[in-house]
Protein backbone atom coordinates (compact mmCIF):
# COMPACT_ATOMS: atom_id res chain seq x y z
CA UNK A 1 0.00 0.00 0.00
CA UNK A 2 1.24 3.45 -0.89
CA UNK A 3 2.34 5.60 2.05
CA UNK A 4 0.12 8.43 0.88
CA UNK A 5 -2.86 6.12 1.02
CA UNK A 6 -1.99 4.99 4.52
CA UNK A 7 -1.51 8.58 5.52
CA UNK A 8 -4.89 9.65 4.26
CA UNK A 9 -6.42 6.66 6.04
CA UNK A 10 -4.67 7.80 9.19
CA UNK A 11 -5.94 11.35 8.77
CA UNK A 12 -9.46 10.09 8.17
CA UNK A 13 -9.26 8.15 11.42
CA UNK A 14 -7.99 11.24 13.19
CA UNK A 15 -10.88 13.36 11.93
CA UNK A 16 -13.37 10.79 13.22
CA UNK A 17 -11.43 10.69 16.45
CA UNK A 18 -11.46 14.42 17.08
CA UNK A 19 -15.17 14.62 16.38
CA UNK A 20 -15.87 11.83 18.76
CA UNK A 21 -13.65 13.46 21.31
CA UNK A 22 -15.71 16.64 21.17
CA UNK A 23 -18.85 14.60 21.79
CA UNK A 24 -17.46 12.10 24.26
CA UNK A 25 -15.61 14.60 26.44
CA UNK A 26 -18.91 16.01 27.70
CA UNK A 27 -20.27 12.52 28.30
CA UNK A 28 -17.16 11.55 30.20
CA UNK A 29 -17.23 14.71 32.28
CA UNK A 30 -20.80 14.11 33.41
CA UNK A 31 -20.04 10.50 34.18
CA UNK A 32 -16.89 11.34 36.11
CA UNK A 33 -18.60 13.85 38.34
CA UNK A 34 -22.18 12.71 38.66
CA UNK A 35 -21.76 8.98 37.98
CA UNK A 36 -24.54 9.16 35.42
CA UNK A 37 -24.50 7.64 31.96
CA UNK A 38 -26.33 10.12 29.82
CA UNK A 39 -27.98 8.47 26.80
CA UNK A 40 -29.46 11.85 25.90
CA UNK A 41 -26.00 13.19 25.14
CA UNK A 42 -26.43 11.91 21.59
CA UNK A 43 -29.76 13.73 21.38
CA UNK A 44 -28.10 16.95 22.49
CA UNK A 45 -25.59 16.44 19.71
CA UNK A 46 -28.39 15.91 17.19
CA UNK A 47 -30.23 19.01 18.40
CA UNK A 48 -26.99 20.95 18.01
CA UNK A 49 -26.86 19.90 14.37
CA UNK A 50 -30.49 20.86 13.73
CA UNK A 51 -30.14 24.17 15.55
CA UNK A 52 -27.02 24.97 13.53
CA UNK A 53 -28.93 24.30 10.33
CA UNK A 54 -31.74 26.52 11.58
CA UNK A 55 -29.28 29.24 12.53
CA UNK A 56 -27.64 29.14 9.13
CA UNK A 57 -31.04 29.59 7.50
CA UNK A 58 -31.76 32.56 9.73
CA UNK A 59 -28.42 34.32 9.79
CA UNK A 60 -26.78 33.88 6.44
CA UNK A 61 -27.39 30.82 4.30
CA UNK A 62 -24.08 30.87 2.44
CA UNK A 63 -21.48 32.96 4.14
CA UNK A 64 -20.08 33.53 7.60
CA UNK A 65 -23.43 32.67 9.18
CA UNK A 66 -22.04 29.23 10.01
CA UNK A 67 -19.94 30.40 12.94
CA UNK A 68 -22.73 32.40 14.50
CA UNK A 69 -25.09 29.49 13.92
CA UNK A 70 -22.70 27.07 15.63
CA UNK A 71 -22.42 29.29 18.66
CA UNK A 72 -26.18 29.71 18.70
CA UNK A 73 -26.66 25.93 18.53
CA UNK A 74 -24.15 25.23 21.29
CA UNK A 75 -25.70 27.86 23.57
CA UNK A 76 -29.22 26.65 22.79
CA UNK A 77 -28.35 23.10 23.75
CA UNK A 78 -26.55 24.40 26.82
CA UNK A 79 -29.74 26.14 27.94
CA UNK A 80 -31.69 22.94 27.33
CA UNK A 81 -29.14 21.11 29.46
CA UNK A 82 -29.70 23.60 32.28
CA UNK A 83 -33.45 23.12 32.13
CA UNK A 84 -33.16 19.33 32.09
CA UNK A 85 -30.72 19.28 34.98
CA UNK A 86 -32.69 21.69 37.16
CA UNK A 87 -36.12 20.23 36.48
CA UNK A 88 -35.51 16.50 36.39
CA UNK A 89 -31.99 15.26 36.84
CA UNK A 90 -31.61 16.89 40.22
CA UNK A 91 -34.14 14.59 41.82
CA UNK A 92 -32.49 11.49 40.40
CA UNK A 93 -28.97 11.82 41.81
CA UNK A 94 -29.58 9.64 44.81
CA UNK A 95 -31.68 7.08 42.94
CA UNK A 96 -30.61 3.77 41.47
CA UNK A 97 -28.74 3.88 38.19
CA UNK A 98 -31.61 2.04 36.49
CA UNK A 99 -33.86 5.06 36.94
CA UNK A 100 -31.15 7.44 35.77
CA UNK A 101 -30.51 5.36 32.64
CA UNK A 102 -34.20 5.18 31.87
CA UNK A 103 -34.68 8.88 32.46
CA UNK A 104 -31.97 9.76 29.96
CA UNK A 105 -33.51 7.24 27.57
CA UNK A 106 -36.90 8.96 27.96
CA UNK A 107 -35.16 12.16 26.87
CA UNK A 108 -33.78 10.33 23.82
CA UNK A 109 -37.31 9.35 22.81
CA UNK A 110 -38.84 12.76 23.43
CA UNK A 111 -36.08 14.85 21.86
CA UNK A 112 -35.84 12.51 18.86
CA UNK A 113 -39.51 12.98 18.09
CA UNK A 114 -39.38 16.69 18.85
CA UNK A 115 -36.65 17.04 16.21
CA UNK A 116 -38.75 15.08 13.72
CA UNK A 117 -41.73 17.28 14.51
CA UNK A 118 -39.80 20.53 14.11
CA UNK A 119 -37.52 19.72 11.20
CA UNK A 120 -39.16 16.78 9.44
CA UNK A 121 -37.48 13.56 8.39
CA UNK A 122 -35.66 14.77 5.26
CA UNK A 123 -31.90 14.98 5.17
CA UNK A 124 -30.65 18.49 5.82
CA UNK A 125 -27.20 19.78 5.04
CA UNK A 126 -25.08 22.82 5.70
CA UNK A 127 -22.36 23.99 3.34
CA UNK A 128 -18.79 24.32 4.53
CA UNK A 129 -17.94 27.87 5.61
CA UNK A 130 -16.09 29.59 2.70
CA UNK A 131 -12.88 30.18 4.68
CA UNK A 132 -12.38 26.43 5.11
CA UNK A 133 -13.90 25.24 1.86
CA UNK A 134 -10.61 24.43 0.14
CA UNK A 135 -8.18 21.59 0.61
CA UNK A 136 -4.42 21.17 0.84
CA UNK A 137 -1.99 18.49 -0.29
CA UNK A 138 -0.09 16.79 2.50
CA UNK A 139 2.27 13.89 1.67
CA UNK A 140 0.49 13.39 -1.60
CA UNK A 141 -2.97 13.08 -0.10
CA UNK A 142 -5.73 15.65 -0.32
CA UNK A 143 -6.93 16.95 3.01
CA UNK A 144 -10.01 19.18 3.21
CA UNK A 145 -9.22 22.27 5.26
CA UNK A 146 -12.32 21.74 7.34
CA UNK A 147 -11.07 18.35 8.55
CA UNK A 148 -7.77 19.93 9.55
CA UNK A 149 -9.71 22.57 11.45
CA UNK A 150 -11.56 19.85 13.38
CA UNK A 151 -8.27 18.13 14.12
CA UNK A 152 -7.01 21.36 15.61
CA UNK A 153 -10.19 22.06 17.60
CA UNK A 154 -10.15 18.67 19.34
CA UNK A 155 -6.77 18.97 21.06
CA UNK A 156 -7.46 22.63 21.79
CA UNK A 157 -10.62 21.76 23.73
CA UNK A 158 -8.80 18.91 25.44
CA UNK A 159 -6.02 21.26 26.51
CA UNK A 160 -8.42 23.95 27.70
CA UNK A 161 -10.45 21.37 29.58
CA UNK A 162 -7.34 20.01 31.24
CA UNK A 163 -6.23 23.54 32.10
CA UNK A 164 -9.54 24.45 33.68
CA UNK A 165 -9.85 21.18 35.58
CA UNK A 166 -6.33 21.09 36.94
CA UNK A 167 -5.18 24.67 37.19
CA UNK A 168 -8.16 26.74 38.28
CA UNK A 169 -10.29 27.25 41.35
CA UNK A 170 -13.39 26.04 39.57
CA UNK A 171 -11.56 22.94 38.43
CA UNK A 172 -10.47 22.20 41.99
CA UNK A 173 -14.09 22.37 43.12
CA UNK A 174 -15.13 20.06 40.30
CA UNK A 175 -12.47 17.53 41.18
CA UNK A 176 -13.49 17.72 44.82
CA UNK A 177 -17.12 17.08 43.84
CA UNK A 178 -15.90 14.07 41.89
CA UNK A 179 -14.15 12.63 44.92
CA UNK A 180 -16.56 13.33 47.73
CA UNK A 181 -19.73 15.19 47.13
CA UNK A 182 -20.95 15.19 50.70
CA UNK A 183 -17.72 16.47 52.16
CA UNK A 184 -17.63 19.33 49.67
CA UNK A 185 -21.22 20.12 50.53
CA UNK A 186 -20.44 20.12 54.21
CA UNK A 187 -17.54 22.48 53.63
CA UNK A 188 -19.99 25.04 52.32
CA UNK A 189 -19.44 24.76 48.58
CA UNK A 190 -22.51 24.90 46.41
CA UNK A 191 -22.39 21.42 44.92
CA UNK A 192 -25.73 21.88 43.19
CA UNK A 193 -24.38 24.78 41.16
CA UNK A 194 -21.25 22.86 40.26
CA UNK A 195 -23.38 19.97 39.00
CA UNK A 196 -25.61 22.25 36.97
CA UNK A 197 -22.57 24.02 35.56
CA UNK A 198 -20.92 20.78 34.55
CA UNK A 199 -24.09 19.49 32.94
CA UNK A 200 -24.55 22.74 31.02
CA UNK A 201 -20.93 22.66 29.85
CA UNK A 202 -21.31 19.05 28.77
CA UNK A 203 -24.50 19.89 26.84
CA UNK A 204 -22.74 22.91 25.30
CA UNK A 205 -19.97 20.64 24.01
CA UNK A 206 -22.53 18.20 22.62
CA UNK A 207 -24.37 21.01 20.85
CA UNK A 208 -21.12 22.46 19.52
CA UNK A 209 -19.96 19.13 18.12
CA UNK A 210 -23.37 18.60 16.53
CA UNK A 211 -23.09 22.00 14.88
CA UNK A 212 -19.53 21.43 13.70
CA UNK A 213 -20.37 18.09 12.12
CA UNK A 214 -22.98 19.57 9.78
CA UNK A 215 -20.59 20.56 6.94
CA UNK A 216 -19.31 16.97 6.72
CA UNK A 217 -22.40 14.89 7.47
CA UNK A 218 -25.99 15.41 6.56
CA UNK A 219 -28.45 15.80 9.41
CA UNK A 220 -30.87 12.90 9.68
CA UNK A 221 -33.21 11.51 12.34
CA UNK A 222 -31.50 8.62 14.10
CA UNK A 223 -28.07 10.25 14.23
CA UNK A 224 -28.61 10.53 17.98
CA UNK A 225 -28.79 6.83 18.79
CA UNK A 226 -25.98 5.99 16.37
CA UNK A 227 -23.51 8.49 17.81
CA UNK A 228 -24.19 7.76 21.45
CA UNK A 229 -22.94 4.16 21.27
CA UNK A 230 -19.77 5.36 19.57
CA UNK A 231 -19.30 7.93 22.30
CA UNK A 232 -19.79 5.19 24.90
CA UNK A 233 -17.09 3.11 23.26
CA UNK A 234 -14.66 6.01 23.35
CA UNK A 235 -15.41 6.81 26.97
CA UNK A 236 -15.12 3.17 28.01
CA UNK A 237 -11.79 2.70 26.22
CA UNK A 238 -10.27 5.82 27.73
CA UNK A 239 -11.81 5.43 31.15
CA UNK A 240 -15.10 6.93 32.27
CA UNK A 241 -14.45 10.28 33.84
CA UNK A 242 -10.90 10.72 32.57
CA UNK A 243 -10.43 13.68 30.26
CA UNK A 244 -7.18 12.63 28.59
CA UNK A 245 -8.45 9.07 28.58
CA UNK A 246 -11.34 10.18 26.45
CA UNK A 247 -8.91 11.95 24.13
CA UNK A 248 -6.75 8.87 23.58
CA UNK A 249 -9.83 6.66 23.54
CA UNK A 250 -11.11 8.69 20.60
CA UNK A 251 -7.82 8.37 18.76
CA UNK A 252 -7.78 4.59 19.29
CA UNK A 253 -11.40 4.30 18.19
CA UNK A 254 -10.88 6.43 15.07
CA UNK A 255 -7.77 4.59 13.96
CA UNK A 256 -9.13 1.10 14.71
CA UNK A 257 -12.20 1.90 12.67
CA UNK A 258 -10.18 3.46 9.89
CA UNK A 259 -7.59 0.68 9.55
CA UNK A 260 -10.01 -2.06 10.55
CA UNK A 261 -11.84 -1.41 7.30
CA UNK A 262 -8.61 -2.21 5.43
CA UNK A 263 -7.77 -5.35 7.34
CA UNK A 264 -11.19 -6.96 7.73
CA UNK A 265 -13.63 -5.12 5.53
CA UNK A 266 -17.13 -5.25 6.90
CA UNK A 267 -16.02 -6.17 10.37
CA UNK A 268 -14.60 -2.90 11.62
CA UNK A 269 -17.91 -2.26 13.39
CA UNK A 270 -17.52 -5.58 15.12
CA UNK A 271 -13.92 -4.79 16.08
CA UNK A 272 -14.75 -1.56 17.89
CA UNK A 273 -17.51 -3.17 19.96
CA UNK A 274 -15.22 -6.10 20.68
CA UNK A 275 -12.56 -3.63 21.78
CA UNK A 276 -15.08 -2.03 24.14
CA UNK A 277 -15.98 -5.42 25.60
CA UNK A 278 -12.34 -6.44 26.02
CA UNK A 279 -11.46 -3.20 27.80
CA UNK A 280 -14.43 -3.59 30.14
CA UNK A 281 -13.41 -7.16 30.90
CA UNK A 282 -9.71 -6.56 31.42
CA UNK A 283 -9.73 -3.04 32.82
CA UNK A 284 -13.28 -1.83 33.55
CA UNK A 285 -12.06 1.62 34.51
CA UNK A 286 -10.48 2.08 31.09
CA UNK A 287 -6.94 2.63 29.88
CA UNK A 288 -6.47 5.97 31.62
CA UNK A 289 -9.08 5.92 34.36
CA UNK A 290 -8.70 4.94 37.97
CA UNK A 291 -10.62 2.14 39.71
CA UNK A 292 -13.69 3.46 41.48
Amino acid at each position, binding site marked *: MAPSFLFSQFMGGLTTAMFLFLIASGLSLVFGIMRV*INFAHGSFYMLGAYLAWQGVQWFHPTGPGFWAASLFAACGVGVLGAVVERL*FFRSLYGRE*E*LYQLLFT*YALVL*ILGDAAKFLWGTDQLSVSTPPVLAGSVQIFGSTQPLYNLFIMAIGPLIAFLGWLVLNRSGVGRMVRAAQMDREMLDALGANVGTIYTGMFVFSSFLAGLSGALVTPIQSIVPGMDVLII*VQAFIVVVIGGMGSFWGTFWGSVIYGEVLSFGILIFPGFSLFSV*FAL*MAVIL*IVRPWGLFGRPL
Partner: protein
Amino acid sequence: MTSETTTTTTTGVAEATPAAPASQMIGGGSSVIGRIPWTLIVFLVACSVPWIGGRYNTFLAEQIAIDALFAVSLNLLLGTTGLVSFGHVAYFGVGAYVCGILMKTYNVPFILAFPAAGLGAALFALVSGYFCVRLIKLYFAMLTLAFSQIIWAIAYKWNDVTGGDQGLPEIPFPSFDWLNHVPWLGDLKTSDQFYLLTVLLIAISLAIIHRIVRSPFGRVLTTIRDNPERAAFIGVNVKLYQLAAFVVAGTFAGFAGALYGLFSRGVFADYVFWSKSAEVMIMTILGGMDYFWGPPIGAFALVWLNQEITDYTQYWPFFLGAILLVLLFGFPGGILGGVDMLWQRLRRARRA
Protein backbone atom coordinates in the same frame (compact mmCIF):
# COMPACT_ATOMS: atom_id res chain seq x y z
CA MET B 1 -51.05 -20.05 40.45
CA THR B 2 -50.85 -21.52 43.89
CA SER B 3 -51.37 -19.57 47.03
CA GLU B 4 -48.26 -18.16 48.57
CA THR B 5 -47.65 -17.42 52.15
CA THR B 6 -44.48 -15.59 51.47
CA THR B 7 -42.12 -15.25 54.35
CA THR B 8 -39.34 -14.34 51.91
CA THR B 9 -35.78 -15.23 52.62
CA THR B 10 -34.04 -16.39 55.69
CA THR B 11 -31.78 -13.39 55.84
CA GLY B 12 -34.24 -11.11 57.51
CA VAL B 13 -34.72 -8.83 54.54
CA ALA B 14 -38.46 -9.44 54.37
CA GLU B 15 -39.28 -5.78 54.84
CA ALA B 16 -37.24 -4.87 51.78
CA THR B 17 -39.05 -7.19 49.38
CA PRO B 18 -42.39 -5.89 48.18
CA ALA B 19 -43.14 -9.35 46.76
CA ALA B 20 -45.21 -10.32 49.77
CA PRO B 21 -48.15 -7.92 49.42
CA ALA B 22 -48.13 -8.48 45.69
CA SER B 23 -48.63 -12.19 45.95
CA GLN B 24 -51.38 -11.65 48.47
CA MET B 25 -53.11 -9.35 46.09
CA ILE B 26 -52.77 -11.30 42.89
CA GLY B 27 -52.27 -14.85 43.99
CA GLY B 28 -53.35 -16.32 47.28
CA GLY B 29 -54.54 -14.46 50.31
CA SER B 30 -57.99 -14.70 51.72
CA SER B 31 -59.81 -12.21 49.51
CA VAL B 32 -62.38 -13.27 46.93
CA ILE B 33 -60.29 -11.77 44.15
CA GLY B 34 -57.36 -13.87 45.26
CA ARG B 35 -59.30 -17.10 44.87
CA ILE B 36 -60.12 -16.61 41.21
CA PRO B 37 -57.66 -18.61 39.06
CA TRP B 38 -56.47 -15.59 37.08
CA THR B 39 -53.69 -17.30 35.19
CA LEU B 40 -56.04 -20.00 33.93
CA ILE B 41 -58.56 -17.39 32.79
CA VAL B 42 -55.92 -15.35 30.99
CA PHE B 43 -54.60 -18.48 29.32
CA LEU B 44 -58.07 -19.55 28.15
CA VAL B 45 -58.91 -16.06 26.90
CA ALA B 46 -55.61 -15.95 25.06
CA CYS B 47 -56.37 -19.31 23.45
CA SER B 48 -59.81 -18.19 22.29
CA VAL B 49 -58.60 -15.06 20.51
CA PRO B 50 -58.41 -16.60 16.98
CA TRP B 51 -62.10 -17.57 17.18
CA ILE B 52 -63.55 -14.53 18.90
CA GLY B 53 -61.03 -11.78 18.17
CA GLY B 54 -60.40 -11.76 14.46
CA ARG B 55 -57.14 -11.40 12.62
CA TYR B 56 -55.94 -8.07 13.96
CA ASN B 57 -56.55 -8.93 17.59
CA THR B 58 -54.76 -12.24 17.14
CA PHE B 59 -51.81 -10.28 15.80
CA LEU B 60 -51.85 -7.99 18.83
CA ALA B 61 -52.29 -10.88 21.25
CA GLU B 62 -49.31 -12.70 19.77
CA GLN B 63 -47.20 -9.57 20.03
CA ILE B 64 -48.22 -9.17 23.67
CA ALA B 65 -47.51 -12.81 24.49
CA ILE B 66 -44.01 -12.76 23.00
CA ASP B 67 -43.17 -9.40 24.58
CA ALA B 68 -44.47 -10.74 27.88
CA LEU B 69 -42.07 -13.68 27.81
CA PHE B 70 -39.19 -11.43 26.76
CA ALA B 71 -39.95 -8.95 29.55
CA VAL B 72 -40.40 -11.68 32.18
CA SER B 73 -37.03 -13.12 31.21
CA LEU B 74 -35.45 -9.69 31.62
CA ASN B 75 -37.16 -9.25 34.96
CA LEU B 76 -35.43 -12.37 36.22
CA LEU B 77 -32.32 -10.19 36.10
CA LEU B 78 -33.79 -6.77 36.78
CA GLY B 79 -36.38 -7.39 39.47
CA THR B 80 -35.35 -10.73 40.94
CA THR B 81 -31.55 -10.56 40.91
CA GLY B 82 -31.08 -6.79 40.74
CA LEU B 83 -28.86 -6.84 37.64
CA VAL B 84 -29.41 -3.91 35.27
CA SER B 85 -28.81 -5.51 31.89
CA PHE B 86 -28.84 -3.04 29.04
CA GLY B 87 -28.21 -5.67 26.40
CA HIS B 88 -30.92 -8.25 26.92
CA VAL B 89 -31.93 -7.96 23.28
CA ALA B 90 -28.72 -9.83 22.37
CA TYR B 91 -30.16 -13.14 23.59
CA PHE B 92 -33.52 -12.43 21.97
CA GLY B 93 -31.61 -11.78 18.76
CA VAL B 94 -29.45 -14.90 19.02
CA GLY B 95 -32.59 -16.99 19.49
CA ALA B 96 -34.33 -15.33 16.57
CA TYR B 97 -31.35 -15.76 14.25
CA VAL B 98 -30.58 -19.34 15.27
CA CYS B 99 -34.18 -20.42 14.76
CA GLY B 100 -34.56 -18.38 11.57
CA ILE B 101 -31.30 -19.56 9.98
CA LEU B 102 -31.98 -23.19 10.86
CA MET B 103 -35.52 -23.13 9.51
CA LYS B 104 -34.92 -21.02 6.43
CA THR B 105 -31.41 -21.93 5.30
CA TYR B 106 -31.25 -25.53 6.51
CA ASN B 107 -34.93 -26.53 6.51
CA VAL B 108 -34.69 -27.80 10.05
CA PRO B 109 -38.15 -28.52 11.53
CA PHE B 110 -39.42 -26.17 14.22
CA ILE B 111 -39.40 -28.89 16.85
CA LEU B 112 -35.59 -28.94 16.63
CA ALA B 113 -34.97 -25.30 15.71
CA PHE B 114 -36.88 -23.96 18.70
CA PRO B 115 -34.84 -25.76 21.38
CA ALA B 116 -31.70 -24.94 19.39
CA ALA B 117 -32.60 -21.25 19.63
CA GLY B 118 -32.81 -21.49 23.41
CA LEU B 119 -29.56 -23.43 23.50
CA GLY B 120 -27.77 -20.90 21.32
CA ALA B 121 -28.97 -18.03 23.46
CA ALA B 122 -28.00 -19.93 26.62
CA LEU B 123 -24.48 -20.56 25.33
CA PHE B 124 -23.97 -16.94 24.40
CA ALA B 125 -25.41 -15.90 27.77
CA LEU B 126 -22.99 -18.26 29.49
CA VAL B 127 -19.96 -16.82 27.71
CA SER B 128 -20.96 -13.15 27.93
CA GLY B 129 -22.48 -13.53 31.38
CA TYR B 130 -19.25 -15.03 32.71
CA PHE B 131 -17.57 -11.70 32.06
CA CYS B 132 -20.55 -9.47 32.84
CA VAL B 133 -21.28 -10.68 36.37
CA ARG B 134 -17.75 -9.87 37.42
CA LEU B 135 -18.54 -6.18 36.95
CA ILE B 136 -20.82 -4.06 39.06
CA LYS B 137 -23.57 -1.56 38.36
CA LEU B 138 -22.85 0.81 35.49
CA TYR B 139 -19.94 -1.27 34.23
CA PHE B 140 -22.20 -4.30 34.13
CA ALA B 141 -24.77 -2.31 32.15
CA MET B 142 -22.08 -1.08 29.74
CA LEU B 143 -20.65 -4.55 29.13
CA THR B 144 -24.06 -6.05 28.44
CA LEU B 145 -24.61 -3.17 26.02
CA ALA B 146 -21.26 -3.92 24.36
CA PHE B 147 -22.12 -7.60 23.90
CA SER B 148 -25.50 -6.78 22.44
CA GLN B 149 -23.88 -4.37 19.99
CA ILE B 150 -21.41 -7.10 19.01
CA ILE B 151 -24.38 -9.29 18.10
CA TRP B 152 -25.89 -6.36 16.23
CA ALA B 153 -22.65 -5.75 14.31
CA ILE B 154 -22.48 -9.43 13.34
CA ALA B 155 -26.14 -9.51 12.32
CA TYR B 156 -25.71 -6.32 10.34
CA LYS B 157 -22.53 -7.23 8.52
CA TRP B 158 -22.31 -11.03 8.13
CA ASN B 159 -24.28 -11.06 4.89
CA ASP B 160 -23.74 -14.74 4.03
CA VAL B 161 -25.32 -16.04 7.19
CA THR B 162 -27.58 -13.38 8.65
CA GLY B 163 -28.55 -11.62 5.44
CA GLY B 164 -26.85 -8.42 6.63
CA ASP B 165 -28.95 -5.30 6.42
CA GLN B 166 -31.47 -7.16 4.26
CA GLY B 167 -32.14 -9.58 7.10
CA LEU B 168 -33.74 -13.00 6.69
CA PRO B 169 -37.18 -12.48 5.22
CA GLU B 170 -39.84 -15.12 4.66
CA ILE B 171 -38.98 -17.65 7.29
CA PRO B 172 -41.45 -20.51 6.79
CA PHE B 173 -44.05 -21.33 9.42
CA PRO B 174 -43.71 -24.71 11.05
CA SER B 175 -45.82 -27.39 9.36
CA PHE B 176 -49.22 -27.92 10.92
CA ASP B 177 -50.46 -30.57 8.46
CA TRP B 178 -50.92 -33.06 11.27
CA LEU B 179 -53.59 -30.77 12.73
CA ASN B 180 -55.75 -31.02 9.62
CA HIS B 181 -58.02 -33.70 11.00
CA VAL B 182 -58.34 -32.28 14.46
CA PRO B 183 -61.75 -30.66 14.94
CA TRP B 184 -61.67 -26.89 15.65
CA LEU B 185 -57.91 -26.58 15.10
CA GLY B 186 -57.77 -28.06 11.60
CA ASP B 187 -59.93 -25.33 10.07
CA LEU B 188 -57.76 -22.48 11.32
CA LYS B 189 -55.31 -20.50 9.20
CA THR B 190 -51.66 -21.45 9.61
CA SER B 191 -50.92 -18.13 11.30
CA ASP B 192 -53.66 -18.84 13.87
CA GLN B 193 -52.34 -22.34 14.46
CA PHE B 194 -48.92 -20.84 15.02
CA TYR B 195 -50.49 -18.33 17.40
CA LEU B 196 -51.91 -21.15 19.51
CA LEU B 197 -48.57 -22.90 19.54
CA THR B 198 -46.93 -19.64 20.63
CA VAL B 199 -49.42 -19.16 23.46
CA LEU B 200 -48.87 -22.71 24.63
CA LEU B 201 -45.07 -22.47 24.54
CA ILE B 202 -45.12 -19.13 26.30
CA ALA B 203 -47.51 -20.38 28.99
CA ILE B 204 -45.14 -23.30 29.66
CA SER B 205 -42.13 -20.97 29.72
CA LEU B 206 -43.83 -18.57 32.13
CA ALA B 207 -44.82 -21.47 34.39
CA ILE B 208 -41.20 -22.64 34.46
CA ILE B 209 -39.86 -19.16 35.22
CA HIS B 210 -42.50 -18.77 37.91
CA ARG B 211 -41.33 -22.00 39.51
CA ILE B 212 -37.72 -20.83 39.30
CA VAL B 213 -38.49 -17.49 40.94
CA ARG B 214 -40.38 -19.16 43.80
CA SER B 215 -37.83 -21.91 44.29
CA PRO B 216 -35.03 -21.78 46.88
CA PHE B 217 -32.78 -20.81 43.98
CA GLY B 218 -35.01 -17.83 43.26
CA ARG B 219 -34.97 -16.85 46.93
CA VAL B 220 -31.20 -16.75 46.87
CA LEU B 221 -31.33 -14.47 43.83
CA THR B 222 -33.61 -12.09 45.74
CA THR B 223 -31.23 -12.15 48.66
CA ILE B 224 -28.39 -11.25 46.32
CA ARG B 225 -30.43 -8.37 44.96
CA ASP B 226 -31.17 -6.99 48.40
CA ASN B 227 -27.75 -7.42 49.88
CA PRO B 228 -24.94 -9.10 47.96
CA GLU B 229 -22.45 -8.74 50.81
CA ARG B 230 -24.76 -10.46 53.23
CA ALA B 231 -25.49 -13.20 50.72
CA ALA B 232 -21.78 -13.79 50.26
CA PHE B 233 -21.36 -13.77 54.01
CA ILE B 234 -23.78 -16.64 54.55
CA GLY B 235 -21.85 -18.71 52.01
CA VAL B 236 -23.64 -18.00 48.74
CA ASN B 237 -21.45 -17.96 45.67
CA VAL B 238 -22.87 -14.67 44.43
CA LYS B 239 -21.23 -14.60 41.00
CA LEU B 240 -22.24 -18.17 40.26
CA TYR B 241 -25.87 -17.51 41.13
CA GLN B 242 -25.87 -14.32 39.10
CA LEU B 243 -24.41 -16.20 36.15
CA ALA B 244 -27.07 -18.91 36.50
CA ALA B 245 -29.79 -16.25 36.50
CA PHE B 246 -28.14 -14.63 33.48
CA VAL B 247 -28.15 -17.90 31.54
CA VAL B 248 -31.75 -18.75 32.44
CA ALA B 249 -32.89 -15.25 31.48
CA GLY B 250 -30.92 -15.45 28.24
CA THR B 251 -32.41 -18.83 27.36
CA PHE B 252 -35.99 -17.64 27.69
CA ALA B 253 -35.18 -14.43 25.82
CA GLY B 254 -33.89 -16.73 23.08
CA PHE B 255 -37.18 -18.64 23.03
CA ALA B 256 -39.08 -15.36 22.79
CA GLY B 257 -36.81 -14.28 19.94
CA ALA B 258 -37.33 -17.53 18.04
CA LEU B 259 -41.10 -17.13 18.28
CA TYR B 260 -40.87 -13.48 17.29
CA GLY B 261 -38.85 -14.24 14.17
CA LEU B 262 -41.53 -16.67 12.99
CA PHE B 263 -44.37 -14.40 14.05
CA SER B 264 -43.03 -11.41 12.12
CA ARG B 265 -42.02 -13.68 9.22
CA GLY B 266 -38.41 -12.60 9.25
CA VAL B 267 -35.40 -11.65 11.35
CA PHE B 268 -33.70 -8.31 10.83
CA ALA B 269 -30.69 -6.60 12.33
CA ASP B 270 -32.96 -3.86 13.70
CA TYR B 271 -34.32 -6.37 16.21
CA VAL B 272 -30.94 -6.44 17.92
CA PHE B 273 -30.20 -2.72 18.06
CA TRP B 274 -29.54 -1.46 21.57
CA SER B 275 -32.67 0.68 21.77
CA LYS B 276 -34.75 -2.53 21.78
CA SER B 277 -33.18 -3.41 25.11
CA ALA B 278 -34.45 -0.12 26.45
CA GLU B 279 -37.94 -0.84 25.13
CA VAL B 280 -38.25 -4.18 26.89
CA MET B 281 -36.90 -2.52 30.02
CA ILE B 282 -39.64 0.10 29.81
CA MET B 283 -42.21 -2.68 29.51
CA THR B 284 -40.86 -4.34 32.63
CA ILE B 285 -40.83 -1.17 34.68
CA LEU B 286 -44.23 -0.08 33.38
CA GLY B 287 -45.87 -3.24 34.65
CA GLY B 288 -43.86 -3.26 37.85
CA MET B 289 -40.57 -5.08 38.23
CA ASP B 290 -41.26 -6.09 41.83
CA TYR B 291 -44.03 -8.41 40.67
CA PHE B 292 -43.89 -11.58 38.64
CA TRP B 293 -46.91 -10.54 36.56
CA GLY B 294 -45.70 -6.97 36.20
CA PRO B 295 -43.79 -7.42 32.92
CA PRO B 296 -46.69 -9.19 31.13
CA ILE B 297 -49.03 -6.40 32.23
CA GLY B 298 -46.46 -3.88 31.02
CA ALA B 299 -46.28 -5.70 27.68
CA PHE B 300 -50.05 -5.64 27.39
CA ALA B 301 -50.27 -1.96 28.30
CA LEU B 302 -47.50 -0.93 25.93
CA VAL B 303 -48.75 -2.88 22.91
CA TRP B 304 -52.28 -1.63 23.50
CA LEU B 305 -51.18 1.99 24.00
CA ASN B 306 -48.98 1.75 20.94
CA GLN B 307 -51.83 0.75 18.70
CA GLU B 308 -54.18 3.32 20.24
CA ILE B 309 -51.71 6.17 19.90
CA THR B 310 -50.35 5.28 16.46
CA ASP B 311 -53.93 5.53 15.22
CA TYR B 312 -53.77 9.25 15.86
CA THR B 313 -50.15 10.23 15.46
CA GLN B 314 -46.82 9.00 14.18
CA TYR B 315 -45.07 10.37 17.26
CA TRP B 316 -45.30 7.22 19.35
CA PRO B 317 -41.74 7.50 20.75
CA PHE B 318 -42.63 10.91 22.14
CA PHE B 319 -45.56 9.42 24.04
CA LEU B 320 -43.44 6.48 25.16
CA GLY B 321 -40.92 8.94 26.55
CA ALA B 322 -43.67 10.90 28.27
CA ILE B 323 -45.11 7.70 29.77
CA LEU B 324 -41.65 6.83 30.99
CA LEU B 325 -41.26 10.23 32.64
CA VAL B 326 -44.59 9.91 34.44
CA LEU B 327 -43.56 6.43 35.51
CA LEU B 328 -40.13 7.42 36.81
CA PHE B 329 -41.28 10.50 38.68
CA GLY B 330 -44.81 9.47 39.65
CA PHE B 331 -45.10 5.69 39.91
CA PRO B 332 -41.69 4.06 40.20
CA GLY B 333 -43.48 0.83 41.19
CA GLY B 334 -45.23 0.60 37.82
CA ILE B 335 -48.86 -0.30 37.22
CA LEU B 336 -48.94 -3.17 39.70
CA GLY B 337 -47.06 -1.09 42.24
CA GLY B 338 -49.69 1.60 41.92
CA VAL B 339 -52.58 -0.87 42.16
CA ASP B 340 -50.92 -2.51 45.12
CA MET B 341 -50.56 0.80 46.93
CA LEU B 342 -54.18 1.68 46.26
CA TRP B 343 -55.30 -1.74 47.48
CA GLN B 344 -53.33 -1.43 50.71
CA ARG B 345 -54.80 2.00 51.31
CA LEU B 346 -58.36 0.74 50.75
CA ARG B 347 -57.84 -2.15 53.13
CA ARG B 348 -56.44 0.12 55.77
CA ALA B 349 -59.39 2.49 55.33
CA ARG B 350 -61.85 -0.39 55.66
CA ARG B 351 -60.19 -1.65 58.80
CA ALA B 352 -60.15 1.76 60.44
